[in-house]
Structures are given as C-alpha cells and as structure tokens.
C-alpha cells in the first residue's frame, strides 16, 4: 500500500509524517506525534472527545484523514496554554470543576474555546447547543456550562482591558 507524505502545523510547529491514506488525523496526533491529550472516545464521530482545531474550526479528529489535513494549521489541547499559563477556558473548567472523570474534557475545552472565538457572549442556550457534539457521561453538563460562561466573561474582560 502506498504511503503519503503529509506536512502540517501542529501547535505552531511544522511537522511531517509518512502515513497510509487511511490514517486518521487523531492517529497521526496520538501515535506519530505522541500528543495523547486528544482522546478517542467513541471512534464513531459522536462523542467529541477527539475535538481539535483545524484552521481555526473545531472538528472531530477521528473523522478526518491525516491526508485531508495536509497543509492545515492544527491546534490540540496541548497547544492551548501559552507560556505555562492556562487558557481561560482551561482555568474556568478547573475553577468550576467542569468535569468528573476528565475523559471528555480535552474535547469540551477545545470545542468551548472555538465557540468563544465565534461568539464571545453566548447565552446558556447557545452554549448547550454548541456543545451538542461533545458528550459527557459524568457531569450532567451543569458545571461545564458554568465554566464556559465564566471563561466567556474572563475573555471579554481581557479583550476590553486590551483596548
């Protein structure tokens, strides 16, 4: 079987790998690049634990081929904190304990971070609707939604202070 050479940017670093055409992006991230923060939950594109950003949009990395991400700018949970400082969404999940077992958390955080770029002031309904693609079997979502609301407030204040 043929292999393909793919080159992409992951968390700001240029990486290349030779992969089979059927290699999924999540396999490239976890098995080639050892970025195991991105989880495989259902492997059927339902649970969202594998959510990463591809060119600034949240996608399920178990349902995109590595080959399709050739040339793309990919961000994973490992690339969210900057210079050792947690992203506001990560900090808010910690503050509000937006998790129990934590397995879905990387996907929840990546999905929420994408939401707050596109909609800095979402209503509770908009948060819950956006997170339909992320399934948590522990929390009942209550603290997750609180965390996203809190992160939205933090990010808005930071943006205001910068103006």
């Amino acid at each position, binding site marked *: 079987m043929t292999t393909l050479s793919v080159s992409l940017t992951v968390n700001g670093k240029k990486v290349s790998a030779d992969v089979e055409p059927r290699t*999924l992006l999540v396999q490239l991230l976890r098995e080639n690049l050892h970025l195991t923060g991105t989880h495989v939950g259902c*492997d059927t*594109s339902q649970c969202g634990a594998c959510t990463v950003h591809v060119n600034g949009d949240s996608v*399920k990395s178990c*349902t995109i*081929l590595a*080959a399709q991400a050739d040339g793309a700018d990919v961000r994973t949970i490992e690339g969210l904190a900057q210079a050792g400082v947690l992203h506001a969404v990560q900090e808010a999940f910690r503050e509000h304990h937006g998790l129990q077992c934590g397995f879905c958390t990387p996907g929840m955080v990546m999905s929420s971070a994408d939401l707050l770029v*596109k909609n800095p002031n979402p209503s509770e309904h908009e948060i819950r609707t956006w997170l*339909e*693609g992320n399934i948590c079997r522990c929390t009942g979502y209550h603290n997750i939604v609180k965390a996203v609301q809190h992160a939205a407030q933090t990010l808005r204040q930071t943006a205001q202070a910068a103006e």
Partner: protein
Amino acid sequence: MYAFDYTRPTSVADAVATLASDSDATVLAGGMTLIPTLKQRLAQPSQLVDLGALPGLAGIRREGDTLIIGAMTRHADVARSEIVAAALPALAALADGIGDAQVRHRGTIGGSIVNHDPAADYPSAVLGLGATVVTDRRQIAADDFFTGLFATALEEGEIVTEVRFPLPKRAAYVKFPNPASRYAVVGVFVAETGSGVRVAVTGAGPGVFRAGNFEAALTASFTPKAVEGLVWSADDLNSDMHASAGYRAHLIGVLAKRAVATIA
C-alpha cells in the same frame, strides 16, 4: 478501514478524469458520512478522490434572484453567511441545525445531496425550492435529481459543482430532530416560489418527496389553517426504532403547519 489510495486533484477536470479511469474510486467531500462508513468497513473503494483542494467549488454568491452555493461549501459557512441570511434565511437556519458544530465545520452541501440520506436536511431545501443541481457536465432539476434511497440521477464519476436556488417569496424549514444524531425524524420544507407552492418532506420516506395534497391546500390558502386535518398516508413511510410510519405521517402534518405558521 480497508486500505485505499488517495488523490487530491486541483481541478475538476482532473477529478473527473481520475474517476473515469477507476470505476471503484469514490469522491470524498466533507467525509462526515463517508469516513464513518469506511471505518465500519461498509464500503471498500479503491481510492478516494478528495475534492478538498478545489477552492472554486466552495463559495456563496447571489446573482439576481438566484442564490448559488458551491458544492464544497460547508454547513457552517452557509449558516453564518450574510448573503444567505439576507436572501434565504430558511436555508441558513437549516444549515445551522445539521448535526453538531464539528460536523458543520466539515460537512458540505454537495456531499449531503449526493449521499441523499433519507433523513438528511439539505435534500428538502433543494427539492422544496425547485433548485438546480449543476455538475461537471450538465444541469439537473431537483425534481429529477433525487431518485430513491441513497440514490440520485448522477452518472458514474459525475461531480456536483454547485446548487442554484431560485429565491422564493417566503420559505421555512421545520424538523423533528432525532435527539442523538440531529438527523430529521421528519423535516418539512415549505416554500412559496415563483412557480407555485412546494412542500418537500425528508426523514419520513425512502428519500425526499413532495407532498402534493399539502401543496394544493397551501396554493388555495397559504395559512396554517389550510393544512389542518390534512393527512399523508403512512403506507410508504419508514418505520424504525425512532418512530413508526404512522407517527411519521402525523409529524408531516404537524411540522408543515408549524413551518407555514412561521411565515404566513
């Protein structure tokens, strides 16, 4: 997944040529249905012809009274397009209700209509608005495009390039979503178009179809009251773990009335 080869052509002509030279090749658009299908080993294509590097196939524009959407335009782009919001808000709302945010960031209008899943949302808009499907070789009227369960009028190796929607006077789409998948258990697209009232139903049968008795009633009077008590036969409708045929038949009436109520 079974192993396959992968090509990413940079022109529609190259994509068509590759498909013509290999009858076991399959087109990859957004992959939101195809990749899960491959993962379950329900398909074994020799190669995937990825349309993702054809920038000419993605985009939204308006020409007079026609809204034109490129086949590789993603649901999220339709949902948040100012052009679509102004020209055809029912279509923006439909796109915003497909799957979930992550799916809308990958899934495309072309992929959706070519797959013709009986529970997909987009086919109802294409049929309900009397759109024209443009391919690499011809134009196909919506009434001729959807031919049956997961089937369309496309020839082997034919690629959809864009969909042209004539702008209606008013239109609305209401669906009863499956709470897990967000696919339509039933969805009804109602439109008052330049060539009459059209009512297209998805989710209920083996493919999208028009509900003639609802169209006749709404032609006489475009009001929610006009469709009250109208019945669509459950005979040819789907029955599965999500809903019986009788329940789906009932939903057609309920959702048609709700759709009309939002625009009457």
